[in-house]
């Protein structure tokens, strides 16, 4: 296994899929000549001999180029549309939700829309309210879409490759703060199936459910819980938000009887609310404590660093929530 960064993993997936299938192309702001705002597509345009049809720089017109992607997909191509960040996808919400997600159904199954919408979601550092939003809940609410949010280089590469090969529209939410993290990635070709969660750490005392950046906070919290209380936390990485692999979560909860759901986004109507709902319904009799959640605070992200640190959920908060569901905070 090679150890590479999340960014490199995405780059490998892009190159491999674009080489494997010439219908695959990348389109978005700054993806070509500028190597991508976050350098995910570094050198890609040159790699394809400067062919602008394969790597297309667009104007700042999210709804327009997302719609172009939908049309190209209907006409037989397999577009990868990059949103420089998901915050800007709010301008393309119509193209993604009203068109991409519905055309297969509205046409009675005649037209497929094999398109991937991808880019970083969530907060980076001090980008303030308009640039720090988590889109997970908005998109995973929508039937017709599939939504993935990988936490590691291995999952990022494997899920992007699966997304490109999927015949339905896939929303892939990455993270600016994830691009530099490193991890092991198989040398040989592999895919990570859409719709399968993964147990990232085995445990018996409680279950911590997380996705994307929060998986790392969860793993850190698990270590702390082991040191501090000799508790073995099991960490389930959802990896895909739609379809949601709740079976893996339920299986874990039936073993641990306690669960903490962690997410970066806003709490009301967050992804964790659905997980909590499913767990309380499907594992009611196995729960020794209510499902507990850790999320970003219910506010637009403030700029000041000290405030942002408080709003953004981290392992310390997960530890407290875990202590609570294990009734270790009674004093």
């Amino acid at each position, binding site marked *: 296994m090679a150890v590479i960064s999340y960014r490199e993993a995405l780059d490998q997936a892009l190159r491999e899929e674009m080489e494997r299938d010439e219908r695959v*192309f990348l389109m978005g702001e700054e993806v070509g000549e500028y190597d991508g705002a976050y350098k995910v597509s570094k050198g890609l345009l040159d790699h394809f001999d400067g062919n602008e*049809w394969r790597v*297309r720089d*667009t*104007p700042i*017109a999210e*709804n*327009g*180029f*997302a*719609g*172009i*992607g*939908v*049309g*190209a*997909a*209907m*006409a*037989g*191509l397999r*577009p990868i549309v990059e949103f420089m960040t998901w915050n800007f996808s709010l301008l393309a919400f*119509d*193209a993604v939700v*009203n*068109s991409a997600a519905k*055309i*297969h*159904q*509205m*046409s*009675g*199954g*005649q*037209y*497929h829309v*094999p398109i991937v919408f991808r880019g970083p979601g969530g907060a980076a550092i001090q980008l303030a309210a308009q640039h720090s939003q988590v889109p997970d809940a908005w998109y995973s609410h929508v*039937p*017709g879409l*599939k939504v993935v949010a990988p936490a590691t280089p291995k999952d990022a590469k494997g899920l992007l490759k699966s997304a490109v090969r*999927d*015949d*339905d529209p896939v929303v892939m939410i990455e993270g600016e703060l994830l691009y530099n993290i490193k991890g092991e990635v198989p040398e040989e070709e592999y895919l990570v199936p859409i*719709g399968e969660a993964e147990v990232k750490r085995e445990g018996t005392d409680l279950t911590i459910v997380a996705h994307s950046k929060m998986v790392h906070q969860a793993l850190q919290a698990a270590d702390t819980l082991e040191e501090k209380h000799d508790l073995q936390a099991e960490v389930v990485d959802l990896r895909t938000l739609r*379809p949601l*692999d*709740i079976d893996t979560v339920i299986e874990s909860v039936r073993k641990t009887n306690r669960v903490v759901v962690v997410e970066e986004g806003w709490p009301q109507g967050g992804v964790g609310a659905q997980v909590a709902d*499913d767990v309380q319904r499907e594992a009611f009799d196995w729960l020794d404590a209510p499902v507990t959640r850790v999320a970003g605070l219910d506010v637009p992200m403030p700029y000041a660093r000290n405030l942002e640190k408080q709003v953004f959920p981290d392992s310390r908060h997960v530890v407290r929530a875990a202590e609570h569901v294990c009734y270790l905070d009674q004093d």
Partner: protein
Amino acid sequence: MATKSENETKGDPKEEAGLLGLDEEELRRLLRLMMLGRRFEEKAAESYQTGKIGGFCHLYMGQEAVAVGSISSLRDDDYVITAYRDHVQALVRGIEPRAVMAELFGRVDGCSKGQGGSMHMFDRSLNFMGGHAIVGSHVPIAAGVGYAIRYRDEDRVCLCLFGDSVTNGGPFHEAFNMAAKFELPVVYLCENNSYGMGTDISRVAAVQDLADRACAYENMASCSVDGMDVLAVRQAVQEAIDRAREEHLPSFIEAHCYRYMGHSMADPSHGTYRSREEVEEHREDDPILTFRRRLIDEGVISEEDYEAMDQEVIDEVEDAAEFADQSPRPDFADIYEYVYSGEYPDIDRRDAWR
């Protein structure tokens, strides 16, 4: 679905001015398609009244020359995409009246299997890409189809029809800029019937002639034509198609036409926004009657031919309605059938109590 060989539209210079040098067969076809559209929608209106058709039902009566003049100029392998006022476009492209009517009735034999309804007619085998109900949303989609054509280095064309209101929206602007900049083979055809629902376009558009909106985009050719004259539309669209095929450049054509009925079957044909008189006046200028008169004057058809054709299309439409009525309603299983292309685990996991 009908097409035409190159020389048909070229014809000889002399005739260009007149009937565009189209042969009799083609001229009859154009007339017949307009008549079919009209009779089909008369039946649709009746079926809506009797409750066989539900939802929004937007009729095209009065605008037939636009769909017929444009779509008839395409090759089989070209693409067509349009808005929610899409029955006639579907018929002209060659979808069977039975399949269109069955779709309106919400039955399995509908061209979208009863899933889409009036606003979402689709037929992949004819490259008929819908039927889109969000105003302006299909304008970028059409550019994407053009993108795929250039990508594969083909000489195909995408024809995109839309209403006048679309020209005030962001998607129109973003798509036009990219279609022009990327040099995409798209023919944008605006069905300017002067109204968006109950709003006169002149009340909300800061431009006299919508065709002038093309001025903001280099490479975007534009012109206005009489949308009540099927040959005028045909000629303008043919030129745009040639430009798209040969030079890979987009065009914007504004066709002035008129909608006889209300915005949808739920709306009055006239009222606060336009008078009965105005509607009556425009009916005088009917595209079918005008073209019929013309073909009779030019000796292309006789009165009798016309009556015969009319009876033909009436029968065709009646047959379509009977067929649609016999066609079964979709199974409940179809509710999940078309949401995703492939497998989706436990798709009904949270769908309880039905």
